[in-house]
């Protein structure tokens, strides 16, 4: 049974989004880290680069596979979690906390309405 905090937003691509004022924080869900198994490498997006929603802008690699991470909304990357470069396993240990991947600005707040709430995401993963 995956942990799906109710205060976060989600995407069908198994990312979580925390809305933090004018910014969002993005990571991958507990379900995703469990499916990936041990993360061995994280490719972080570049800071100050603008991405459109659904652009592939990062990737998470386990011994099983490489998964693309898509920008959940359009915006500019303002910060990345450099801790993951040396300790990628943080994504497995603390996916919603220290395992965050990046921070982005919000181009258009209406895009946030398209994100899933915790109940919808729970239904999606069928648990």
């Amino acid at each position: 049974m995956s942990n799906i905090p109710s205060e976060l937003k989600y995407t069908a691509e198994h990312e979580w989004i925390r809305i933090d004022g004018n910014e969002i924080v993005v990571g991958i869900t507990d379900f995703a880290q469990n499916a990936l198994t041990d993360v061995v490498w994280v490719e972080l997006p570049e800071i100050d680069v603008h991405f459109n929603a659904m652009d592939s802008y990062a990737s998470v690699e386990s011994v099983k596979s490489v998964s693309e991470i898509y920008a959940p909304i359009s915006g500019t990357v303002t910060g990345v979690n450099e801790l993951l470069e040396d300790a990628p396993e943080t994504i497995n240990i603390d996916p919603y906390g220290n395992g965050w991947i990046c921070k982005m600005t919000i181009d258009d707040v209406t895009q946030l309405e398209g994100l899933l709430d915790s109940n919808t995401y729970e239904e999606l993963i069928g648990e």
Partner: protein
Amino acid sequence: MSDLFAFNGARGAGWSQPLPLIDKEVLISAIPAKLRRQNLPKWPRASEPEIVRHYTWLSNRNFGIDNGFYPLGSCTMKHNPRVNEKIVQLPGMDKIHPLQPDHHVQGLLAIYFEMQEMLAVCSGMDQVTLQPVAGAQGEFTAIRCIQEYHRQRGQGHRSKVIVPDSAHGTNPASASMCGYDIIEIPSGEDGRLDIDALKSAVGEDTAAMMITNPSTLGVFEHQIAEATEIVHSAGGQMYYDGANFNAIIGKTDPGRMGFDAVHYNLHKTFSQPHGGGGPGSGPIGVKSHLSQFLPTPIAGRREKIESDPKGVDDGYWYFWEDVGDSSIGKVQQWNGNAGAVVRSWAFYRRYGKELEKMSEHAVLNANYLRHKIMNPDPEIAEKIHVMPLNGAPADLVMHEFTLSLSPLKELHGVTGKDVAKRLLDYGVMAPTLYFPMIVPECLMIEPTETESKEVLDKFASDFHQILSEDPDIITSAPHTTDVKRVDEVWAARNLILKHPGNNSN
């Protein structure tokens, strides 16, 4: 014994260098002083018997199709008939050089021509090149041809290639190498192509769609004609990944399905020792509108005239034919992996017109093994912790099938990887693991047509045995191999790319 670098230092070598033809001092003075080596390199030095023993020892630790069953899905690890080796070792095949003039190599050219024709007929294409030496290189070559086709028609703005989420990873990689953006479309509930998703993905920017049929789930894409229609109406080209060609030969072909280009893996479908990166052969076939873009040269022939030398005496003169100015150029030095082409020709010639029997038996074996695994006898079923799930909800599969070990993971924490590793203890190669990614805890099994019913029965029985074992034994497997469970996570996180013994300067 450990590794080659254990042989080092002042030991005598099993060989001696010829003396240079130029004065040693002259040679040395030609190299700037700062670049001259100060000490002897620490290369391994060993006598000939030591080297022979070393490599024999290594080969004994290896596992291949000659050691046991090798059901590696999507890789088509079939038996390599020894007659292939006999033919490829004929002096006219393995003692020739690519630069020899056409009249020296009529036999090889005739084989190349016949292979081009045979592959064109089997795939419903118009022209084939045997130049690419791997499936992925074939993909790249074909997508480059499609790219040139679009450019010549003023359609160079087409920038996107569509791939289903069940595709081989090389498909998006090959398209990306050509500079295309990738659009991945999800599979439908039944694991097959989702036509609605395809409809919403195509547009004026669509360059091509890449798809394999049967899919990586081992099921036939019965909506393929509709899919090609959708892509063609949007102005895109259809590319057929021939990795699963073993399933359909003589029954249907990519041309009939509407494809414009296809690659073949001779090393899979037409038998050729492969794995570990080679030696492969990834020819491509295209419809006539793409043939002017193929890499150059291809094998051609004309009717013989009186002044021609004897040749192969079939009424034709064979030659390397230039493809022309629109060719994308060469993708490989010389003319592909000639040895792989000749072995595959020998394999196909043993079937001749009955080549379709190969595919029939491949599909029969896959369905038999799938049924056998999924329907254990009641007394065996009783001992099994939990049965795997079918990866695709199809009654029948093609040449391979997928199983999901998710139920076992949920019940006992035993993963697909654990079961795969435990299979090694039973003397079989682990099936393809965790692919396609749309099947959780996936094992992908392809028995090929060359295995007997007894081998398949034994595998099913071993598989059932594992499913009833103590979970601790499975999760700590393998127990009988030279190398036990390796820590893949540690290895991936702590990359060591240089051999610690290789400190030569």
